[in-house]
């Protein structure tokens, strides 16, 4: 695939994250504010709440999508930054390393998500 396509994919992942990340950050980091607005989500970070959310199919799909989009966009960005200081010879190796880190992190994150779902 041409570089410009990978870049468009990264921008699309970012656009998707505007929705997913805003929901996630709002719920997990601004629950005090939500309470003021009349929606009390309770202790969103308690073990019971985390496990209960994790057992919903919708949540599992949400998290897998989110994990993929965030890792792809973030690591594509990291690779762009590092490519600027990598001589042409090393660029293939760099892309390979970044890809491997992304796949490993995705595999672990997906494992945790699916294990929580299946209980």
């Amino acid at each position, binding site marked *: 695939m041409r570089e410009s396509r990978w870049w468009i994919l990264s921008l699309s992942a970012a656009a998707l994250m505007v929705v997913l990340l805003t929901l996630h950050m709002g719920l997990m980091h601004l*629950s005090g*504010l939500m309470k003021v607005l009349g929606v009390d989500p309770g202790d969103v*970070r308690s073990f019971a709440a*985390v496990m209960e959310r994790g057992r919903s199919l919708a949540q599992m799909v949400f998290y897998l999508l989110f994990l993929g989009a965030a890792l792809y966009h*973030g690591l594509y960005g*990291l690779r762009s930054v590092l490519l600027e200081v990598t001589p042409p010879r090393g660029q293939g190796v760099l892309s390979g390393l970044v890809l491997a880190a992304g796949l490993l992190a995705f595999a672990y*994150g997906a494992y*945790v998500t699916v294990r929580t779902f299946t209980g």
Partner: protein
Amino acid sequence: MAEAARRVQSGPPKRIGVRGWVYAGRYGLDRYLYILQRASGLGLILYLFLHIYETGIRLRGEAAWSATMALFRTPVFVVFEFILFAGFVFHALNGLRLIFAELGWLLGPPTRPVYPYRTSIRRHRPWVYALMVLTGLFVALAAWDIFVLLD
């Protein structure tokens, strides 16, 4: 002479290397926003790896999970959480602006280059200010939530 020939061959030094990542010279506001976009993005990806590890702690049971969450409620981590949130707000809003600009939106129609010039960057500038105000507003709300409401 040899030096001049070498310079013709390789051209003048074009790169200022890593210094160019933080030094915007005469480029001004947009270039500094780009630097901040990059810095906040790198912060977020670093955090994402920690976050994937840390959320996996739930598989080790309730005690391990609760101990981790208690650690996150200590002052140092609360300050980190705020910085993370501020980085996210800036990166997301400025990123949205960049995506629009890259699609050619919010730049105004093309015009003939007649003096005094009005570049698309100038026409786009009000959006930059609007988004910075919005970023400031969300960051202030986050500070209220993280430091006051949840205490």
